């Protein structure tokens, strides 16, 4: 059992230069929210957005059972062993969430941060990253928890925010990405230099802000900024079209999506302001597959430590949200070592 603590600690020690790794394992074990990474933007005037507090320790997942077992040494009878014998993993994804899950228009193949995480999980189970090791199923946002609960898919990686309501029907992996609602504006010399530290409430009267009906982002916008003119886009990309065509002044939603939009117009748009919300992304797995949750968390631990997380960040987010690659979000576990 001692190796479970020793190994992460050792890796941390070896990688002291990596920011964010310094947060004590004790703090994590206690399940307290991780401290914001070094160099994080100044908190907005209102309360610092945090995770859902309507249930205790919503972000605390199941602790990995030691180091990642080799694909050939998966415990017999475990979920991973069953999957390995079946030969493929069934994963719920979205194809329209650039850059987390999208079809690359150049090759018509699936790519993205979420997609690559799933491929890493498959690699840990099967030992190879063959193209048929993951069977992707397009799952609509509102169907994600049902698809897991019904067993249609083994795992969902779909920019899914961990919250208490969802936690009632599914188990989540540890947090693999910390997103938050921000603003995208044109780099026209004015909009990009304005002060956005006041949050949505301080946006100029009549500013045309695009968001997608039905999203949590548009809800926050309507609640906090009644003075702006809300423009409804069909999709987030549709909001970018409106911004580019001069029919909107800003787009607001999770910075992950904004990063995707910014990357497609990287010279003339910029993501501005502080995070207005806290959206911790986790992979969803069935509640009765605790062994698989621990296994996926072990995979995530490995990706955090071996620099692969940073590679994925640079590949898919690049410098869209700032020049520096942030530290991976730290895992929190609810069970003792």
């Amino acid at each position, binding site marked *: 059992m001692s190796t479970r603590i020793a190994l992460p600690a050792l890796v941390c020690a070896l990688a002291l230069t990596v920011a964010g790794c310094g947060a004590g394992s004790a703090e994590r074990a206690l399940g307290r929210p991780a401290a914001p990474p070094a160099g994080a933007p100044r908190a907005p005037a209102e309360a610092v957005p945090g995770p859902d507090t309507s249930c205790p320790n919503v972000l605390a997942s199941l602790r990995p059972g030691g180091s990642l077992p080799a694909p050939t040494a998966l415990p017999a009878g475990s979920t991973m062993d069953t999957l390995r014998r079946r030969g493929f993993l069934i994963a719920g*994804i*979205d*194809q*329209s969430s*650039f850059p987390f899950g*999208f*079809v*690359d*228009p*150049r*090759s*018509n*193949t*699936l790519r993205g941060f979420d997609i690559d995480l799933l491929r890493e999980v498959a690699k840990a189970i099967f030992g190879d990253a063959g193209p048929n090791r993951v*069977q*992707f*199923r*397009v799952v*609509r946002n509102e169907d994600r928890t049902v698809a897991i609960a019904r067993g249609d898919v083994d795992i969902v990686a779909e920019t899914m925010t961990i919250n208490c309501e969802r936690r009632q029907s599914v188990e989540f992996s540890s947090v693999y990405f910390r997103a938050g609602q921000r603003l995208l504006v044109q780099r026209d010399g004015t909009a990009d230099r304005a002060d956005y530290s006041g949050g949505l409430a301080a946006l100029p009267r009549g500013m045309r802000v695009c968001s997608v009906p039905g999203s949590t982002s548009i809800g926050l916008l309507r609640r906090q900024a009644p003075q702006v003119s809300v423009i409804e886009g*069909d*999709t*987030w*990309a*549709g909001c*970018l*079209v409106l911004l580019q065509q001069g029919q909107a002044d800003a787009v607001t939603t999770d910075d992950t999506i904004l990063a*995707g*939009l910014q990357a*497609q*117009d990287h010279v003339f748009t910029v993501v501005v302001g502080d995070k207005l919300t806290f959206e911790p992304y986790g992979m969803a797995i069935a509640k009765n597959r605790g062994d698989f949750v621990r296994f996926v968390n072990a995979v995530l631990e490995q990706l955090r430590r071996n620099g692969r997380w940073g590679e994925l960040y640079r590949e898919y987010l690049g410098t869209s949200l700032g020049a520096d690659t942030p530290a991976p979000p730290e895992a929190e576990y609810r069970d003792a070592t």
Partner: protein
Amino acid sequence: MGRLIRVGNTTPGLMLVTGVALVLISLLAGLFAVLAVDRRADAAKAVATGSEPLGVKTQDIYRALADADATAAAGLLEGGVESADVRERYQQAIETASRKLIEATAAGASGEVADKLAVIGVQLPEYARLVERARAETRQGNTVGAAYLRSASKNVMRAKILPAATALHDIAEKRLAGDHRDATSTPWAPLSLLLVALAACAGALWFFARRTHRRINIGLLIAGLATLVSIGWLWAATGTSRDHLDRSRSDGWGPVETLAQARFLTLQAHGDESLTLVMRGSDNGQYEADFNEVWGRLVGVDARDGRPAVTGMLATAERVTRSDAGTLAKVKAARAAAADWKKAHEEVITLYGNGQFEQAVAKVTKADGASRAAFTRIDEALAAAVTEDQGDFARSVRRGRDALGGLGVGMGVSALIAAAATVDGVRREVGRYNRP
């Protein structure tokens, strides 16, 4: 004045008055008949050269636009560099639409037609601009290309251009129906005047016979016969013409209209299928829902949950073409292809749902892809059926116009003969009285 009354009271005087009245009636009836035949021939000519060509043009415009909408989506779907045939088909569609638009405008459009043409003329470049932007973005690997295509398709093509094209087509069809009505109505006014003339002739014959103890005045008899010939000719020729023109509708533009509607639905479904994939789920199933709705209108929907059954456009097409073996065979081929398409479409949706995007796209965009092949078969079968029925239409209209040939002149000559014969007959009779 007194003299006239005196003349009218004598037998020759009465004869003279009768003759003058008879001549006037004959000439008036003849003039009416000539004018009526002339108007009718104009209406038949309008069917052949005016309203129907406008109908064909508006149909072509709509088809080209819907084709562009469907093909633009397919081009974006292919991933990487779009294939030459898809690019050419899109360019061809835009070119055809622009050319037909200019032709329709140059043909002297006015009023509502000009307004609708203007809407299309203004919006088409905007549509093409957004599609080009969609392509440019896609070529740079930007997924926002799909959003530009959606904007082009939803906000411009389907919201502005296609409704204007539909309105244009409706106007053309109304015009055609009006011209057809004018060209096939029974010419009651000239017919009744001719009958009055005939009755007057008969009355005059009786009057002359009584006053002269002679049985028959040859002049008046000839006038009566000429009037009778006019009536028979007018009745027969307009009847034959009407039969042909009615056939031009029942075997021609009637089915063409149904076939064209089926073709439009096919194109829309093809566009929806492509757009479903282009959107990659970001449309929340909107294009798939639209596909199903369009599909219901194309192949019909069974009664369910208290909703009445819908007869599919293809079934309607089969009904309206059943008297025409050549066209019917093509419609049947289209229906068979539709069944194949539905099967292929379900496969596409399954592949898409399983994240096998490339395979799903291949079915929709590759020439040998099951979905595209079935769509092409329907489109070509319907196009051939339209061409065939347009041929039937042109032939029947030509026959209908031919049947009216010489009728106007005939009516005029006949009226002149009747008038001349009346004058001659009356002159001879009155001359006998004046002889000492």
